[in-house]
């Protein structure tokens, strides 16, 4: 297992152009696209932490404040939080759509927080021995992240579409918090340095047998 696993070789994949680079340590630039591959490790981690915590703070108002308001001609006014909207859809019998929104808006952000927290903790403390697992988790967060925008887009579309004199849909302050949450979560995931995944445990890998 030890010999087969390429993490033992000091090579790294450029996050921008996917080229294989020799990891000389310190701050290196990709030989193919010249992007900086590695920042200062502590700074990189600190920035990801800051972005992630900001995103997690926005998650609260995003779920507690209404994302959608409906106004009608008689002065009637109802507003819905994300969860409220999901319950409404469920009651109407639109089960698949209710589930899509539940997964995309409520579970995906939490899953992404948990994954990033896990990655951040596991590069510092040897929580898990499996680097392969950490790589798969990181890959997963990149794929699912943007889907949490579904509910914001739905609210925006309804705002743009339902603007009758007697019946109007407006966004709510929860939608603003939600956009900011997605924005900061994505920045956190993008700022996460993939090389940090291999940093711990701190045994310096032995010099590779043959140059790649």
């Amino acid at each position, binding site marked *: 297992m030890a010999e087969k696993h390429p993490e033992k070789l000091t090579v790294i994949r450029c996050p921008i*152009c996917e080229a294989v680079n020799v990891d000389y340590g310190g701050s290196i630039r990709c030989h193919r696209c010249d992007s900086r591959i590695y920042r200062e490790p502590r700074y990189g981690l600190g920035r990801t932490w800051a972005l992630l915590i900001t995103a997690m703070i926005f998650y609260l108002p995003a779920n507690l404040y209404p994302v959608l308001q409906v106004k009608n001609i008689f002065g009637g006014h109802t507003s819905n939080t994300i969860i409220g909207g999901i319950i409404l859809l469920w009651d109407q019998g639109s089960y698949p759509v209710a589930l899509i929104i539940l997964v995309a808006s409520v579970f995906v952000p939490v899953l992404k927080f948990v994954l990033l927290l896990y990655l951040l903790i596991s590069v510092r403390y040897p929580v898990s021995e499996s680097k*392969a697992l950490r790589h798969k988790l990181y890959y997963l967060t990149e794929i699912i992240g*943007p889907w949490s925008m*579904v509910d914001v*887009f739905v609210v925006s579309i*309804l705002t743009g579409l339902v*603007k*009758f004199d007697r019946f109007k849909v407006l966004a709510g302050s929860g939608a*603003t918090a939600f956009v900011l949450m997605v924005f900061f979560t994505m920045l956190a995931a993008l700022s996460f340095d993939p090389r940090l995944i291999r940093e711990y445990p701190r045994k310096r890998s032995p010099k590779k047998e043959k140059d790649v």
Partner: protein
Amino acid sequence: MAQHAQYEEELERYVICPRCNTLHQKIPLPPGKRAVCKYCGTILYRYDPRYLDRALSLAITGLILFVVANLFPLIQIDLLGNEQHMNILEVISQLLESGYYIVAIGVMFMVLIIPAMVIADYIALIVLMRLRKGEALTRDLLVLLSHLIPWSMVDIFAVSILVALVKLTGEVRIHFGVSFWALLLYVGIDLYLTKARRIGTLWELRNRIYHG
């Protein structure tokens, strides 16, 4: 730096799996075939000699479709004889009008500006590569493309339209505009060009074009 340069050609013969981070040595492929990771089955690269021609016609088609999608209404609804319609621009203006600036800016960037930049970048890139000109510029365009792609969310927006319509069923009559079908086709092309084909493939094509 000079000592690093000697590895570059050698490094081009390797590829790291984006999903499980394992190192693989590339092998020559017959046209139309693809190489997959032996650990997790993810597609690593393909040999597709006619990709540039196909990508150029698809990208130009995509641009036309995106323009059409923004010129006419995507969806039209009818409530007791009152008609309303929306497209991306109307969604943004309605959000601005109701004071949801952050949501408006989010939609504007993720669904309008960045997708437009992606397609313009892509077309410029392929034209330059086919003319075998502007090697340095193609590098910058490819790096920019990598930074833009994660923020382009028209695919998610298209799914959101369908979700929004489910919320409206029963209350209004719904008509799909020509722009809606244009948007769906655009999404298909965008997914093919930016998600199905890895950015590393374009870098390899670029290498082959400018360096034999």
